[in-house]
Protein backbone atom coordinates (compact mmCIF):
# COMPACT_ATOMS: atom_id res chain seq x y z
CA UNK A 1 0.00 0.00 0.00
CA UNK A 2 1.48 3.32 -1.01
CA UNK A 3 1.83 6.05 1.59
CA UNK A 4 -0.46 9.04 1.22
CA UNK A 5 1.23 11.96 -0.48
CA UNK A 6 1.61 14.95 1.84
CA UNK A 7 -0.40 17.94 0.68
CA UNK A 8 2.42 20.38 1.47
CA UNK A 9 6.04 19.32 1.59
CA UNK A 10 9.26 21.21 2.16
CA UNK A 11 12.54 19.37 1.51
CA UNK A 12 15.68 21.03 2.83
CA UNK A 13 14.25 24.42 1.99
CA UNK A 14 16.43 27.46 2.51
CA UNK A 15 15.54 31.06 1.71
CA UNK A 16 18.01 33.92 1.53
CA UNK A 17 17.06 37.44 0.46
CA UNK A 18 19.01 39.41 -2.19
CA UNK A 19 20.76 41.42 0.52
CA UNK A 20 22.16 38.17 1.94
CA UNK A 21 19.85 37.97 4.93
CA UNK A 22 18.85 34.38 5.67
CA UNK A 23 15.21 33.68 6.42
CA UNK A 24 15.00 29.86 6.45
CA UNK A 25 17.60 27.09 6.74
CA UNK A 26 17.31 23.43 5.90
CA UNK A 27 13.57 23.12 6.54
CA UNK A 28 12.06 19.67 6.25
CA UNK A 29 8.32 19.66 6.79
CA UNK A 30 5.55 17.43 5.46
CA UNK A 31 1.92 18.34 6.12
CA UNK A 32 -0.85 15.86 5.44
CA UNK A 33 -4.37 16.75 4.33
CA UNK A 34 -6.50 17.79 7.31
CA UNK A 35 -3.54 18.44 9.61
CA UNK A 36 -3.66 21.55 11.75
CA UNK A 37 -0.19 22.87 12.38
CA UNK A 38 0.84 25.64 14.72
CA UNK A 39 4.07 27.36 13.79
CA UNK A 40 5.83 28.90 16.74
CA UNK A 41 8.86 31.10 16.96
CA UNK A 42 10.03 34.53 18.02
CA UNK A 43 9.93 37.57 15.75
CA UNK A 44 12.30 37.24 12.83
CA UNK A 45 12.68 33.47 12.99
CA UNK A 46 11.12 32.96 9.55
CA UNK A 47 7.48 32.06 10.26
CA UNK A 48 6.09 34.55 7.74
CA UNK A 49 8.67 33.50 5.16
CA UNK A 50 7.74 29.85 5.62
CA UNK A 51 4.07 30.64 5.11
CA UNK A 52 4.92 32.53 1.94
CA UNK A 53 6.90 29.62 0.61
CA UNK A 54 3.86 27.42 1.27
CA UNK A 55 1.73 29.96 -0.60
CA UNK A 56 4.05 29.90 -3.61
CA UNK A 57 5.03 33.53 -3.16
CA UNK A 58 8.68 32.90 -2.43
CA UNK A 59 10.67 30.32 -4.36
CA UNK A 60 13.27 28.65 -2.12
CA UNK A 61 16.89 29.53 -2.71
CA UNK A 62 17.69 25.85 -2.04
CA UNK A 63 15.54 22.78 -1.61
CA UNK A 64 12.08 22.05 -2.87
CA UNK A 65 8.48 22.86 -2.13
CA UNK A 66 5.91 20.34 -3.32
CA UNK A 67 2.18 20.81 -3.41
CA UNK A 68 0.12 17.62 -3.77
CA UNK A 69 3.25 15.90 -5.02
CA UNK A 70 4.08 18.47 -7.68
CA UNK A 71 7.21 20.58 -7.45
CA UNK A 72 6.46 24.29 -7.15
CA UNK A 73 9.11 26.40 -8.85
CA UNK A 74 9.35 29.41 -11.18
CA UNK A 75 8.23 27.27 -14.10
CA UNK A 76 5.15 25.93 -12.28
CA UNK A 77 4.26 29.39 -11.08
CA UNK A 78 4.15 30.65 -14.64
CA UNK A 79 1.57 28.01 -15.58
CA UNK A 80 -1.64 30.05 -15.37
CA UNK A 81 -3.95 27.07 -15.14
CA UNK A 82 -1.96 25.58 -12.31
CA UNK A 83 -1.70 28.95 -10.58
CA UNK A 84 -5.44 29.48 -10.74
CA UNK A 85 -6.09 26.06 -9.25
CA UNK A 86 -3.45 26.55 -6.57
CA UNK A 87 -4.79 29.94 -5.56
CA UNK A 88 -8.28 28.47 -5.10
CA UNK A 89 -6.98 25.68 -2.94
CA UNK A 90 -4.37 27.48 -0.84
CA UNK A 91 -4.96 30.87 0.78
CA UNK A 92 -2.82 33.02 3.05
CA UNK A 93 -3.95 35.67 5.48
CA UNK A 94 -1.23 38.27 5.83
CA UNK A 95 -0.33 39.78 9.15
CA UNK A 96 -1.19 43.29 8.02
CA UNK A 97 -4.66 43.37 6.48
CA UNK A 98 -4.08 46.56 4.50
CA UNK A 99 -1.82 44.71 2.09
CA UNK A 100 -4.60 42.37 1.08
CA UNK A 101 -7.38 44.77 0.20
CA UNK A 102 -7.60 46.29 -3.28
CA UNK A 103 -11.22 46.18 -4.38
CA UNK A 104 -13.55 49.18 -4.38
CA UNK A 105 -16.09 47.85 -1.86
CA UNK A 106 -16.31 45.17 0.82
CA UNK A 107 -18.77 43.30 -1.39
CA UNK A 108 -16.32 43.34 -4.30
CA UNK A 109 -13.54 42.32 -1.96
CA UNK A 110 -15.32 39.21 -0.68
CA UNK A 111 -16.57 38.42 -4.17
CA UNK A 112 -13.16 38.77 -5.77
CA UNK A 113 -12.22 35.10 -5.44
CA UNK A 114 -15.71 33.97 -6.51
CA UNK A 115 -15.81 35.31 -10.03
CA UNK A 116 -15.96 31.79 -11.45
CA UNK A 117 -19.38 31.30 -9.79
CA UNK A 118 -22.76 32.30 -11.17
CA UNK A 119 -24.08 35.66 -10.01
CA UNK A 120 -26.71 34.22 -7.59
CA UNK A 121 -24.19 31.78 -6.07
CA UNK A 122 -21.66 34.55 -5.73
CA UNK A 123 -24.15 36.92 -4.08
CA UNK A 124 -25.22 34.14 -1.70
CA UNK A 125 -21.69 33.39 -0.61
CA UNK A 126 -20.87 37.05 -0.14
CA UNK A 127 -23.93 37.49 2.06
CA UNK A 128 -23.14 34.33 4.00
CA UNK A 129 -19.57 35.34 4.85
CA UNK A 130 -20.48 38.95 5.49
CA UNK A 131 -23.01 37.70 8.03
CA UNK A 132 -20.63 35.21 9.63
CA UNK A 133 -18.00 37.90 10.12
CA UNK A 134 -20.31 40.77 11.02
CA UNK A 135 -19.62 42.78 7.89
CA UNK A 136 -23.18 43.04 6.57
CA UNK A 137 -23.39 46.75 7.38
CA UNK A 138 -20.22 47.50 5.44
CA UNK A 139 -20.88 45.74 2.16
CA UNK A 140 -20.96 48.92 0.13
CA UNK A 141 -18.15 50.67 2.02
CA UNK A 142 -14.60 50.99 0.67
CA UNK A 143 -12.24 48.66 2.54
CA UNK A 144 -9.86 51.44 3.49
CA UNK A 145 -12.59 53.06 5.61
CA UNK A 146 -12.80 50.05 7.93
CA UNK A 147 -11.01 49.85 11.26
CA UNK A 148 -8.03 47.51 11.74
CA UNK A 149 -10.16 44.76 13.27
CA UNK A 150 -12.85 45.09 10.62
CA UNK A 151 -10.21 44.83 7.89
CA UNK A 152 -8.87 41.67 9.50
CA UNK A 153 -12.39 40.17 9.55
CA UNK A 154 -12.82 41.23 5.94
CA UNK A 155 -9.57 39.46 4.99
CA UNK A 156 -10.85 36.32 6.71
CA UNK A 157 -14.15 36.58 4.86
CA UNK A 158 -12.35 36.98 1.52
CA UNK A 159 -10.26 33.90 2.09
CA UNK A 160 -12.92 31.63 3.60
CA UNK A 161 -15.44 32.52 0.91
CA UNK A 162 -13.17 30.77 -1.59
CA UNK A 163 -13.59 27.51 0.42
CA UNK A 164 -9.92 26.60 0.31
CA UNK A 165 -8.30 23.28 1.18
CA UNK A 166 -5.36 24.94 2.91
CA UNK A 167 -5.56 27.94 5.18
CA UNK A 168 -2.33 29.71 6.07
CA UNK A 169 -2.65 32.33 8.80
CA UNK A 170 0.08 34.77 9.79
CA UNK A 171 -0.52 36.01 13.33
CA UNK A 172 -4.29 36.06 12.81
CA UNK A 173 -5.11 37.11 16.34
CA UNK A 174 -2.93 40.24 16.25
CA UNK A 175 -5.75 42.60 15.25
CA UNK A 176 -8.84 40.54 16.02
CA UNK A 177 -11.12 41.22 18.97
CA UNK A 178 -11.71 38.32 21.42
CA UNK A 179 -15.15 37.61 19.94
CA UNK A 180 -13.77 37.09 16.47
CA UNK A 181 -10.84 35.09 17.84
CA UNK A 182 -13.37 32.81 19.51
CA UNK A 183 -15.33 32.51 16.28
CA UNK A 184 -12.17 31.66 14.32
CA UNK A 185 -11.05 29.01 16.80
CA UNK A 186 -14.52 27.46 16.76
CA UNK A 187 -14.61 27.52 12.99
CA UNK A 188 -11.15 25.97 12.65
CA UNK A 189 -12.14 23.15 15.03
CA UNK A 190 -15.11 22.11 12.95
CA UNK A 191 -13.47 22.02 9.49
CA UNK A 192 -11.71 19.24 7.61
CA UNK A 193 -9.28 21.87 6.41
CA UNK A 194 -5.50 21.82 6.45
CA UNK A 195 -4.19 24.79 8.36
CA UNK A 196 -0.84 26.28 9.28
CA UNK A 197 -1.09 29.07 11.80
CA UNK A 198 1.91 31.19 12.75
CA UNK A 199 1.64 32.69 16.20
CA UNK A 200 3.50 33.48 19.33
CA UNK A 201 0.39 33.48 21.53
CA UNK A 202 1.11 30.34 23.54
CA UNK A 203 -2.27 30.36 25.28
CA UNK A 204 -4.12 29.69 22.04
CA UNK A 205 -1.82 26.95 20.72
CA UNK A 206 -3.91 23.93 21.85
CA UNK A 207 -6.96 25.41 20.14
CA UNK A 208 -5.16 26.37 16.94
CA UNK A 209 -3.81 22.93 16.10
CA UNK A 210 -2.69 19.48 17.18
CA UNK A 211 0.77 19.61 15.69
CA UNK A 212 3.41 22.07 16.89
CA UNK A 213 6.45 23.09 14.89
CA UNK A 214 8.99 25.47 16.41
CA UNK A 215 11.42 27.58 14.41
CA UNK A 216 14.59 28.77 16.08
CA UNK A 217 16.26 32.17 15.84
CA UNK A 218 18.62 30.69 13.28
CA UNK A 219 15.65 29.82 11.07
CA UNK A 220 15.61 26.03 11.48
CA UNK A 221 12.98 23.60 12.68
CA UNK A 222 14.04 22.67 16.21
CA UNK A 223 10.91 20.86 17.27
CA UNK A 224 8.10 18.98 15.55
CA UNK A 225 5.52 17.31 17.76
CA UNK A 226 4.81 14.78 15.04
CA UNK A 227 8.38 13.46 15.35
CA UNK A 228 8.63 13.80 19.13
CA UNK A 229 5.23 12.29 19.83
CA UNK A 230 4.18 15.00 22.28
CA UNK A 231 4.12 18.74 23.00
CA UNK A 232 7.33 20.72 23.63
CA UNK A 233 8.57 20.88 27.20
CA UNK A 234 8.86 24.13 29.09
CA UNK A 235 12.66 24.19 28.91
CA UNK A 236 12.55 24.05 25.12
CA UNK A 237 10.06 26.89 25.05
CA UNK A 238 12.24 28.99 27.33
CA UNK A 239 15.33 28.24 25.23
CA UNK A 240 13.59 29.53 22.14
CA UNK A 241 12.10 32.61 23.72
CA UNK A 242 8.52 31.35 23.79
CA UNK A 243 8.13 31.22 27.56
CA UNK A 244 9.61 32.80 30.67
CA UNK A 245 12.17 30.87 32.66
CA UNK B 1 5.20 75.43 -7.95
CA UNK B 2 1.92 73.61 -8.51
CA UNK B 3 0.16 75.58 -11.29
CA UNK B 4 -3.63 75.81 -10.88
CA UNK B 5 -6.08 75.58 -13.78
CA UNK B 6 -6.74 78.69 -15.80
CA UNK B 7 -3.22 80.08 -15.92
CA UNK B 8 -1.88 77.95 -18.75
CA UNK B 9 -3.23 78.41 -22.28
CA UNK B 10 -4.35 75.56 -24.56
CA UNK B 11 -1.50 76.62 -26.85
CA UNK B 12 0.77 75.41 -24.04
CA UNK B 13 -0.98 72.51 -22.35
CA UNK B 14 -2.06 70.73 -25.51
CA UNK B 15 1.46 70.51 -26.99
CA UNK B 16 2.73 69.67 -23.48
CA UNK B 17 0.21 66.82 -23.40
CA UNK B 18 1.43 65.68 -26.80
CA UNK B 19 4.97 65.53 -25.40
CA UNK B 20 3.96 63.98 -22.07
CA UNK B 21 1.80 61.14 -23.39
CA UNK B 22 4.56 59.26 -25.23
CA UNK B 23 6.88 59.82 -22.26
CA UNK B 24 4.27 58.36 -19.90
CA UNK B 25 3.84 55.43 -22.24
CA UNK B 26 7.59 54.91 -22.34
CA UNK B 27 7.91 55.19 -18.57
CA UNK B 28 5.07 52.69 -18.05
CA UNK B 29 6.68 50.35 -20.54
CA UNK B 30 10.11 50.63 -18.87
CA UNK B 31 8.56 49.99 -15.48
CA UNK B 32 6.46 47.05 -16.65
CA UNK B 33 9.52 45.54 -18.33
CA UNK B 34 11.33 45.82 -15.02
CA UNK B 35 8.64 44.34 -12.74
CA UNK B 36 6.21 42.54 -15.06
CA UNK B 37 2.75 41.85 -13.67
CA UNK B 38 3.73 43.51 -10.39
CA UNK B 39 3.56 46.96 -11.95
CA UNK B 40 0.08 47.89 -10.70
CA UNK B 41 0.55 47.22 -6.95
CA UNK B 42 4.10 48.57 -6.89
CA UNK B 43 3.17 51.73 -8.73
CA UNK B 44 0.19 52.23 -6.41
CA UNK B 45 2.40 52.07 -3.32
CA UNK B 46 5.05 54.32 -4.89
CA UNK B 47 2.36 56.85 -5.80
CA UNK B 48 1.20 56.93 -2.20
CA UNK B 49 4.81 57.25 -1.07
CA UNK B 50 5.44 60.09 -3.55
CA UNK B 51 2.31 61.78 -2.27
CA UNK B 52 3.53 61.70 1.31
CA UNK B 53 7.08 62.72 0.39
CA UNK B 54 5.67 65.74 -1.42
CA UNK B 55 4.07 66.80 1.84
CA UNK B 56 7.27 66.48 3.89
CA UNK B 57 8.01 69.65 5.78
CA UNK B 58 11.13 71.49 4.74
CA UNK B 59 12.34 73.37 7.80
CA UNK B 60 13.34 76.93 6.96
CA UNK B 61 15.05 79.52 9.15
CA UNK B 62 12.77 81.50 11.40
CA UNK B 63 10.67 78.54 12.46
CA UNK B 64 8.82 78.44 9.15
CA UNK B 65 8.69 75.54 6.76
CA UNK B 66 7.88 74.76 3.19
CA UNK B 67 6.96 71.58 1.40
CA UNK B 68 9.37 69.24 -0.26
CA UNK B 69 8.78 67.99 -3.78
CA UNK B 70 10.39 64.61 -3.28
CA UNK B 71 10.99 63.81 -6.94
CA UNK B 72 14.76 63.96 -6.56
CA UNK B 73 14.73 61.44 -3.73
CA UNK B 74 12.39 59.13 -5.62
CA UNK B 75 14.60 59.31 -8.72
CA UNK B 76 17.72 58.47 -6.73
CA UNK B 77 16.08 55.55 -4.94
CA UNK B 78 13.79 54.03 -7.56
CA UNK B 79 15.02 55.48 -10.83
CA UNK B 80 13.81 58.39 -12.98
CA UNK B 81 11.03 56.57 -14.85
CA UNK B 82 9.36 55.41 -11.63
CA UNK B 83 9.77 58.87 -10.13
CA UNK B 84 8.22 60.46 -13.23
CA UNK B 85 5.29 58.04 -13.28
CA UNK B 86 4.65 58.22 -9.54
CA UNK B 87 4.82 62.02 -9.52
CA UNK B 88 2.44 62.27 -12.47
CA UNK B 89 -0.01 60.04 -10.65
CA UNK B 90 0.33 62.21 -7.55
CA UNK B 91 -0.68 65.19 -9.68
CA UNK B 92 -3.66 63.22 -10.97
CA UNK B 93 -4.62 62.33 -7.40
CA UNK B 94 -4.28 65.91 -6.23
CA UNK B 95 -6.29 67.23 -9.17
CA UNK B 96 -9.12 64.72 -9.27
CA UNK B 97 -9.34 63.06 -5.87
CA UNK B 98 -8.23 65.83 -3.54
CA UNK B 99 -9.82 68.48 -5.72
CA UNK B 100 -6.75 70.71 -5.87
CA UNK B 101 -7.33 71.11 -9.58
CA UNK B 102 -4.54 71.60 -12.08
CA UNK B 103 -5.85 69.15 -14.63
CA UNK B 104 -4.99 71.40 -17.60
CA UNK B 105 -1.66 72.25 -16.04
CA UNK B 106 -0.96 68.58 -15.37
CA UNK B 107 1.19 67.87 -18.44
CA UNK B 108 3.30 70.98 -17.74
CA UNK B 109 3.65 70.14 -14.04
CA UNK B 110 4.41 66.51 -14.86
CA UNK B 111 7.06 67.43 -17.42
CA UNK B 112 8.66 70.19 -15.38
CA UNK B 113 8.77 68.52 -12.00
CA UNK B 114 8.29 64.85 -12.79
CA UNK B 115 10.30 64.34 -15.95
CA UNK B 116 12.90 67.12 -15.92
CA UNK B 117 13.19 66.97 -12.14
CA UNK B 118 13.68 63.20 -12.01
CA UNK B 119 16.08 62.91 -14.91
CA UNK B 120 18.15 65.89 -13.84
CA UNK B 121 18.59 64.43 -10.36
CA UNK B 122 19.46 61.03 -11.75
CA UNK B 123 21.95 62.25 -14.36
CA UNK B 124 23.70 64.77 -12.12
CA UNK B 125 24.05 62.16 -9.39
CA UNK B 126 25.55 59.61 -11.75
CA UNK B 127 27.88 62.20 -13.21
CA UNK B 128 29.22 63.22 -9.82
CA UNK B 129 28.98 60.14 -7.63
CA UNK B 130 32.53 59.09 -8.29
CA UNK B 131 33.71 62.51 -7.13
CA UNK B 132 31.96 62.33 -3.76
CA UNK B 133 28.62 60.62 -3.11
CA UNK B 134 27.22 63.13 -0.61
CA UNK B 135 28.10 66.06 -2.84
CA UNK B 136 26.53 64.23 -5.77
CA UNK B 137 23.23 63.89 -3.87
CA UNK B 138 23.23 67.56 -2.84
CA UNK B 139 24.03 68.75 -6.33
CA UNK B 140 21.54 66.37 -7.95
CA UNK B 141 18.58 67.53 -5.90
CA UNK B 142 19.53 71.21 -5.96
CA UNK B 143 20.02 71.33 -9.71
CA UNK B 144 16.90 69.24 -10.28
CA UNK B 145 14.74 71.68 -8.35
CA UNK B 146 16.26 74.68 -10.08
CA UNK B 147 15.78 73.19 -13.54
CA UNK B 148 12.14 72.37 -12.75
CA UNK B 149 11.59 75.87 -11.41
CA UNK B 150 13.23 77.34 -14.50
CA UNK B 151 10.93 75.41 -16.78
CA UNK B 152 7.86 76.47 -14.84
CA UNK B 153 9.04 80.10 -14.90
CA UNK B 154 9.63 79.92 -18.65
CA UNK B 155 6.25 78.34 -19.34
CA UNK B 156 4.38 80.84 -17.20
CA UNK B 157 6.32 83.78 -18.61
CA UNK B 158 5.51 82.63 -22.12
CA UNK B 159 1.74 82.96 -21.60
CA UNK B 160 1.40 86.72 -22.26
CA UNK B 161 3.34 86.24 -25.50
CA UNK B 162 1.36 83.38 -26.98
CA UNK B 163 -2.11 83.92 -25.53
CA UNK B 164 -3.26 87.52 -25.76
CA UNK B 165 -6.40 89.31 -26.80
CA UNK B 166 -6.69 91.53 -29.89
CA UNK B 167 -5.74 94.48 -27.66
CA UNK B 168 -2.63 92.68 -26.43
CA UNK B 169 -4.06 92.01 -22.96
CA UNK B 170 -3.11 88.66 -21.41
CA UNK B 171 -5.69 85.87 -21.41
CA UNK B 172 -3.90 83.55 -19.00
CA UNK B 173 -0.94 84.09 -16.69
CA UNK B 174 -0.26 87.80 -17.17
CA UNK B 175 3.43 88.30 -16.33
CA UNK B 176 6.42 87.84 -18.58
CA UNK B 177 9.86 86.42 -17.96
CA UNK B 178 11.13 89.60 -16.30
CA UNK B 179 8.73 88.76 -13.46
CA UNK B 180 8.47 84.98 -13.48
CA UNK B 181 12.17 84.21 -13.61
CA UNK B 182 13.24 86.11 -10.49
CA UNK B 183 9.93 85.46 -8.69
CA UNK B 184 10.19 81.71 -9.10
CA UNK B 185 13.92 81.05 -9.25
CA UNK B 186 14.95 83.08 -6.21
CA UNK B 187 12.76 81.29 -3.64
CA UNK B 188 13.66 77.98 -5.26
CA UNK B 189 17.32 78.62 -4.60
CA UNK B 190 16.46 78.30 -0.92
CA UNK B 191 13.96 75.49 -1.40
CA UNK B 192 16.53 73.65 -3.49
CA UNK B 193 19.17 73.96 -0.78
CA UNK B 194 16.72 72.92 1.91
CA UNK B 195 15.46 69.91 -0.01
CA UNK B 196 18.98 68.90 -1.00
CA UNK B 197 19.97 68.88 2.68
CA UNK B 198 16.89 66.88 3.66
CA UNK B 199 17.43 64.39 0.84
CA UNK B 200 21.04 63.87 1.88
CA UNK B 201 20.00 63.06 5.44
CA UNK B 202 17.51 60.49 4.20
CA UNK B 203 19.92 59.14 1.59
CA UNK B 204 22.68 58.48 4.09
CA UNK B 205 20.43 56.14 6.04
CA UNK B 206 18.68 54.68 3.02
CA UNK B 207 21.94 53.57 1.37
CA UNK B 208 22.65 51.35 4.39
CA UNK B 209 19.48 49.41 3.69
CA UNK B 210 20.96 48.60 0.32
CA UNK B 211 17.83 49.00 -1.72
CA UNK B 212 19.58 51.76 -3.59
CA UNK B 213 21.62 49.92 -6.20
CA UNK B 214 23.76 52.96 -6.99
CA UNK B 215 24.78 53.38 -3.38
CA UNK B 216 25.57 49.69 -3.06
CA UNK B 217 27.81 49.82 -6.09
CA UNK B 218 25.33 47.94 -8.26
CA UNK B 219 23.74 49.39 -11.39
CA UNK B 220 20.01 50.24 -11.15
Amino acid at each position, binding site marked *: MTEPVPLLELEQVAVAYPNGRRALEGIDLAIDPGERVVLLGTNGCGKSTLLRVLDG*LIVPTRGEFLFAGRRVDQHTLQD*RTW*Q*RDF*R*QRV*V*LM*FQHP*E*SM*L*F*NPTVRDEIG*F*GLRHLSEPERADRIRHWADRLRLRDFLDA*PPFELSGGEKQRLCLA*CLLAVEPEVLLLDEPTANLDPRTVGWLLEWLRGRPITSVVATHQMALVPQLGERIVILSDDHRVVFDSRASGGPPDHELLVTHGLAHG | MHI*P*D*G*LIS*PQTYLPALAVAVPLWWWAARAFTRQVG*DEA*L*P*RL*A*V*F*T*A*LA*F*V*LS*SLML*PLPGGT*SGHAIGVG*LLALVFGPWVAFLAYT*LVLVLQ*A*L*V*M*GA*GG*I*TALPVNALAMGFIGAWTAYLVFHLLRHVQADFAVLAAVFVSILFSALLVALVLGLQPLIAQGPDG*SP*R*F*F*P*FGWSVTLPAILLPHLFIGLAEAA*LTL*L*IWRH*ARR*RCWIPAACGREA
Partner: protein
Amino acid sequence: MLLSHPLRFALYLTAVIAVTLIHDPRVLLLALAGLVLLSGSGRYALLLRAGRPVLWILLLISSGILFMGWLTGQPVLGALLLINLRVLVLALLTAWMVRDVDLDLALVRWPKVRRWLVIVRGQVQLFRRLAQDYRCAQKSRTVVAPTLHQRYLGSAAIGLAALDKGVHNAEMVTQAMRSRGALHD
Protein backbone atom coordinates in the same frame (compact mmCIF):
# COMPACT_ATOMS: atom_id res chain seq x y z
CA MET C 1 -32.12 63.36 -15.57
CA LEU C 2 -29.54 61.48 -13.57
CA LEU C 3 -26.26 61.27 -15.43
CA SER C 4 -24.01 58.24 -15.00
CA HIS C 5 -20.71 58.86 -13.28
CA PRO C 6 -18.55 58.10 -16.33
CA LEU C 7 -20.62 60.63 -18.28
CA ARG C 8 -20.34 63.20 -15.49
CA PHE C 9 -16.60 62.76 -15.46
CA ALA C 10 -16.37 63.07 -19.24
CA LEU C 11 -18.50 66.21 -19.10
CA TYR C 12 -16.23 67.64 -16.43
CA LEU C 13 -13.13 67.11 -18.56
CA THR C 14 -14.86 68.59 -21.61
CA ALA C 15 -16.05 71.59 -19.61
CA VAL C 16 -12.56 72.23 -18.27
CA ILE C 17 -11.09 72.36 -21.76
CA ALA C 18 -14.00 74.44 -23.03
CA VAL C 19 -13.48 77.05 -20.31
CA THR C 20 -9.88 77.53 -21.42
CA LEU C 21 -11.21 78.34 -24.90
CA ILE C 22 -13.59 81.08 -23.70
CA HIS C 23 -12.09 84.57 -23.55
CA ASP C 24 -15.14 86.73 -22.84
CA PRO C 25 -15.48 87.64 -19.13
CA ARG C 26 -19.25 88.02 -19.56
CA VAL C 27 -19.61 84.43 -20.76
CA LEU C 28 -17.42 83.24 -17.89
CA LEU C 29 -19.49 85.22 -15.40
CA LEU C 30 -22.63 83.58 -16.77
CA ALA C 31 -20.90 80.21 -16.54
CA LEU C 32 -19.95 80.89 -12.92
CA ALA C 33 -23.49 81.93 -12.04
CA GLY C 34 -24.87 78.91 -13.86
CA LEU C 35 -22.55 76.56 -12.01
CA VAL C 36 -23.45 78.04 -8.66
CA LEU C 37 -27.17 77.68 -9.42
CA LEU C 38 -26.94 74.18 -10.86
CA SER C 39 -24.74 72.84 -8.07
CA GLY C 40 -27.78 72.50 -5.86
CA SER C 41 -27.83 72.58 -2.09
CA GLY C 42 -24.52 73.17 -0.39
CA ARG C 43 -23.56 75.62 -3.14
CA TYR C 44 -22.01 78.13 -0.77
CA ALA C 45 -19.89 75.49 0.89
CA LEU C 46 -18.88 74.40 -2.60
CA LEU C 47 -17.94 77.95 -3.57
CA LEU C 48 -15.86 78.29 -0.44
CA ARG C 49 -14.18 74.98 -1.09
CA ALA C 50 -13.41 76.01 -4.64
CA GLY C 51 -12.23 79.49 -3.76
CA ARG C 52 -9.92 78.71 -0.86
CA PRO C 53 -7.08 76.94 -2.74
CA VAL C 54 -6.89 79.65 -5.42
CA LEU C 55 -7.49 82.69 -3.23
CA TRP C 56 -3.87 83.62 -2.54
CA ILE C 57 -2.63 83.13 -6.03
CA LEU C 58 -5.50 85.18 -7.43
CA LEU C 59 -4.82 87.94 -4.92
CA LEU C 60 -1.16 87.93 -5.88
CA ILE C 61 -1.85 87.95 -9.60
CA SER C 62 -4.58 90.57 -9.29
CA SER C 63 -2.33 92.84 -7.23
CA GLY C 64 0.35 92.44 -9.85
CA ILE C 65 -2.04 93.25 -12.67
CA LEU C 66 -3.34 96.34 -10.87
CA PHE C 67 0.19 97.46 -10.12
CA MET C 68 1.24 97.01 -13.77
CA GLY C 69 -1.86 98.89 -14.82
CA TRP C 70 -1.00 101.75 -12.52
CA LEU C 71 2.61 101.78 -13.74
CA THR C 72 1.84 101.66 -17.43
CA GLY C 73 -1.47 103.51 -17.41
CA GLN C 74 -3.00 100.71 -19.54
CA PRO C 75 -6.55 99.45 -18.87
CA VAL C 76 -6.42 96.16 -17.01
CA LEU C 77 -9.99 95.49 -15.91
CA GLY C 78 -10.69 93.15 -18.80
CA ALA C 79 -7.64 90.99 -18.12
CA LEU C 80 -8.27 91.12 -14.36
CA LEU C 81 -11.83 89.88 -14.74
CA LEU C 82 -11.00 87.29 -17.39
CA ILE C 83 -8.19 85.63 -15.43
CA ASN C 84 -10.00 85.68 -12.09
CA LEU C 85 -13.25 84.38 -13.52
CA ARG C 86 -11.55 81.65 -15.52
CA VAL C 87 -9.59 80.38 -12.53
CA LEU C 88 -12.70 80.52 -10.31
CA VAL C 89 -14.92 78.74 -12.82
CA LEU C 90 -12.36 75.97 -13.22
CA ALA C 91 -11.88 75.66 -9.46
CA LEU C 92 -15.64 75.44 -8.99
CA LEU C 93 -15.96 72.82 -11.73
CA THR C 94 -13.32 70.73 -9.99
CA ALA C 95 -14.90 71.13 -6.55
CA TRP C 96 -18.26 70.12 -8.01
CA MET C 97 -16.71 67.10 -9.71
CA VAL C 98 -15.07 65.96 -6.48
CA ARG C 99 -18.38 66.31 -4.65
CA ASP C 100 -20.69 64.75 -7.20
CA VAL C 101 -18.64 62.30 -9.22
CA ASP C 102 -17.85 58.96 -7.65
CA LEU C 103 -14.52 58.28 -9.31
CA ASP C 104 -14.82 54.63 -8.52
CA LEU C 105 -18.07 54.41 -10.49
CA ALA C 106 -16.66 56.66 -13.21
CA LEU C 107 -13.82 54.19 -13.72
CA VAL C 108 -16.04 51.10 -13.79
CA ARG C 109 -14.86 50.21 -17.31
CA TRP C 110 -11.24 50.29 -16.23
CA PRO C 111 -10.99 47.75 -13.38
CA LYS C 112 -7.21 47.94 -13.17
CA VAL C 113 -7.34 51.72 -12.69
CA ARG C 114 -10.02 51.28 -10.03
CA ARG C 115 -7.87 48.75 -8.28
CA TRP C 116 -4.87 51.07 -8.47
CA LEU C 117 -6.93 53.89 -6.95
CA VAL C 118 -8.17 51.70 -4.08
CA ILE C 119 -4.65 50.64 -3.20
CA VAL C 120 -3.33 54.20 -3.43
CA ARG C 121 -6.05 55.54 -1.16
CA GLY C 122 -5.42 52.84 1.42
CA GLN C 123 -1.68 53.31 1.30
CA VAL C 124 -1.90 57.12 1.51
CA GLN C 125 -3.87 56.66 4.72
CA LEU C 126 -1.14 54.43 6.12
CA PHE C 127 1.67 56.76 5.14
CA ARG C 128 -0.17 59.77 6.51
CA ARG C 129 -0.73 57.99 9.80
CA LEU C 130 2.94 57.11 9.94
CA ALA C 131 3.96 60.72 9.35
CA GLN C 132 1.46 61.86 11.96
CA ASP C 133 2.78 59.36 14.52
CA TYR C 134 6.32 60.56 13.97
CA ARG C 135 5.33 64.21 14.26
CA CYS C 136 3.35 63.53 17.44
CA ALA C 137 6.21 61.56 18.93
CA GLN C 138 8.65 64.35 18.11
CA LYS C 139 6.33 66.92 19.59
CA SER C 140 5.78 64.91 22.76
CA ARG C 141 9.55 64.65 23.27
CA THR C 142 10.16 68.36 22.67
CA VAL C 143 10.95 70.23 25.86
CA VAL C 144 12.99 73.05 24.33
CA ALA C 145 12.23 74.36 20.83
CA PRO C 146 14.28 72.28 18.38
CA THR C 147 17.14 73.79 16.42
CA LEU C 148 17.01 73.97 12.62
CA HIS C 149 19.24 70.91 12.43
CA GLN C 150 16.96 68.96 14.78
CA ARG C 151 13.95 69.92 12.69
CA TYR C 152 15.74 68.57 9.62
CA LEU C 153 16.52 65.36 11.45
CA GLY C 154 12.83 65.12 12.36
CA SER C 155 11.70 65.53 8.76
CA ALA C 156 14.40 63.16 7.55
CA ALA C 157 13.21 60.52 10.02
CA ILE C 158 9.73 60.74 8.54
CA GLY C 159 11.11 60.58 4.99
CA LEU C 160 13.23 57.55 5.79
CA ALA C 161 10.38 55.78 7.59
CA ALA C 162 8.12 56.47 4.61
CA LEU C 163 10.72 55.08 2.20
CA ASP C 164 11.20 51.99 4.36
CA LYS C 165 7.47 51.46 4.52
CA GLY C 166 7.18 52.11 0.78
CA VAL C 167 9.68 49.42 -0.12
CA HIS C 168 8.15 47.00 2.39
CA ASN C 169 4.52 47.72 1.46
CA ALA C 170 5.19 47.47 -2.28
CA GLU C 171 6.44 43.95 -1.65
CA MET C 172 3.56 43.07 0.72
CA VAL C 173 0.79 44.37 -1.51
CA THR C 174 2.29 42.64 -4.52
CA GLN C 175 2.54 39.34 -2.70
CA ALA C 176 -0.93 39.68 -1.25
CA MET C 177 -2.42 40.37 -4.68
CA ARG C 178 -0.49 37.44 -6.12
CA SER C 179 -1.66 35.24 -3.26
CA ARG C 180 -5.29 36.10 -4.04
CA GLY C 181 -4.78 35.43 -7.73
CA ALA C 182 -5.14 39.08 -8.74
CA LEU C 183 -1.95 39.36 -10.73
CA HIS C 184 -2.68 36.78 -13.34
CA ASP C 185 -6.19 38.02 -14.13
